[in-house]
């Protein structure tokens, strides 16, 4: 009975994983199809990839998207980390509830609502202060808004798990709170900051709905160009582009995951090592139990 239910569980798991991956694998297969027809295999070809290099509007949109993604994820990492520090370290302050709500709500808010409300804000701001003009600036500002939430969630859990006593020890030894934080805690939460930067980068690169609203008539990001092409039907060069993006993002994410695990493992090893050394020395046993 036990074994049978287990087998059923894993069958569903593998069915689910197959569902998640089959479309992407088929898409990559199509991208090497020499024939532009999807149901005919015309032989292996990399022609669609070569065609991408001559598509100027696509390349310009890709450049804009990359610039936006770098700016937005960098801004979001700063704001999100500050919010995480405030929420984890400061138990009470005026506006705490407001900050919690504003950090979590963008995660579930439908993009279409965020998009239109932010556009209306930007339009009204232009009337009042003649800033910001729609384009790069407004796209970055709105991407920072939804990315900040992801940074805060990621850094928050890491920070809550971090050992506070080291920082307190540093402060007891005369370091200022800021210095103790920068030298002790920041390295501990650095993997979370790096991986959330990468997450924001991919989310920003992928955003269609919010960008479409706030970009204005002049600017087009990569997803906007892809959407308008895809709306007209399947096109082989989009298959090639999509395969490139999916693979690049996949590599980034796996690298980020590996980075975080490796630094965790190294830290755990160092701690173990320090504890062992300490135990071998003069410390009483009760202090050496690893927590």
């Amino acid at each position, binding site marked *: 009975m036990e074994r049978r239910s287990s087998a*059923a569980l894993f069958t*569903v798991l593998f069915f*689910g*994983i197959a*569902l*998640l*991956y089959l*479309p*992407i694998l*088929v*898409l990559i297969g*199509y991208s090497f199809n020499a024939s532009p*027809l999807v*149901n005919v295999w015309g032989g292996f070809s990399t022609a669609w990839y070569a065609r991408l290099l001559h598509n100027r509007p696509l390349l310009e949109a890709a450049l804009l998207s990359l610039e936006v993604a770098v700016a937005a994820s960098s801004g979001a990492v700063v*704001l999100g980390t*500050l*919010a995480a520090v*405030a929420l984890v370290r*400061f138990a009470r302050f005026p506006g705490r509830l*407001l*900050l919690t709500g*504003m950090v*979590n709500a*963008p995660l*579930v*808010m*439908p*993009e*279409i*609502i965020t998009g*239109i*409300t932010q556009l*209306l*804000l930007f*339009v009204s701001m232009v*009337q009042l202060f003649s800033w910001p003009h729609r384009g790069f600036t407004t796209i970055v500002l*709105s991407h*920072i*808004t939804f990315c*900040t939430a992801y940074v*805060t969630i990621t850094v928050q859990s890491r920070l809550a798990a971090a050992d506070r006593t080291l920082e307190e020890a540093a402060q007891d030894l005369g370091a200022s709170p800021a210095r103790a934080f920068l030298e002790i805690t920041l390295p501990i939460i650095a993997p979370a900051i790096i991986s959330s930067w990468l997450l924001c980068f*991919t989310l920003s690169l*992928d955003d*269609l709905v919010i960008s*479409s609203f706030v970009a204005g008539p002049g600017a087009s990001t990569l*997803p906007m160009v*892809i959407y308008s092409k*895809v*709306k007209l039907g*399947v096109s082989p060069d*989009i*298959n090639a582009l*999509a395969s490139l*993006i*999916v693979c690049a*993002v*996949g590599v980034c*994410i796996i690298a980020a*995951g590996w980075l975080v*695990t490796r630094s965790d493992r190294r830290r755990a090893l160092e701690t173990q090592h320090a504890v062992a050394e300490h135990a071998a020395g003069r410390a009483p046993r009760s202090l050496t139990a690893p927590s």
Partner: protein
Amino acid sequence: MKPTWRPGRWLIILPPLIFLFVFFLIPFAFAFKISFAEAAPRVPPFTDIISFTRDHHLQLSLTLGNYRYLLTDEVYGVAYLYSLRTAFFSTLICLLLGYPMAYAIARSPHSTQGLLLLIIMLPFWTSFLLRVYALEGIIRDNGFLNTALLHLGLISHPLRIMRTSLAVYLGIIYSYLPFMVLPLFATLEKLDPTLLEAAADLGSTPRRAFLDITLPLSLPGVIAGSMLVFIPAVGEFVIPSLLGGPNQLMIGRVLWDEFFGNHDWPVASAVAIAFLLLLVGPIAIYQYYNVRQLEA
């Protein structure tokens, strides 16, 4: 040790607080305001609500016409209901599929858990738009699925999936499944296995133990996962737009068309505000469970 309050802390709190206040919260106030304006052929394309008359009187002109329009034109009611229904059933199917998946991951050896989670999460981090497009390659009339089934001789005519509700359901389930699995895994992983052993020792069948112990204890994950799927699914635009046909009218699509097609910003704002009111309940539930989980 209770740390003393330092004024320097405001340097940490204020930047995110002010930024999110200005760029996340204030926009709703503007959308609310503009939902009472009228469309006008100018830049920006709506009338002023507050204006000065020639003799320096302050003039406030509000119209409820946009909201009345939402109530009288049945497109909006139909779209709201279709969105709610589609999101509800997609969430249910995601739950039925995601629960065993999360349970299997939680019961697998610790060393493989990380890998399985990465496999589940990877699609979420790769492009949403491109994944919906990739799904189109599978379910098109001449797509992968139909070609395969025709070759195998299982069907004689291609199945028509694109531009139907089935395509929208498949799209939502395919795109949002990871959001369901992750919170479920987080609660199932914390479950103490000795509770199930105790139940078995006391004569409980595995089914009974599941219903009495596992299911109630995983309820926070069920709710968090369901909200993470349901709320964005109601407002989904890309999936009904790319996979659905003219009958798969979801509210996100109506809002998009009102804005980009008809250039009627005030009506689009009214749609957004009405939609938001509909979502206040689910978002509040999500926030409540989220805060509780963070504190646990």
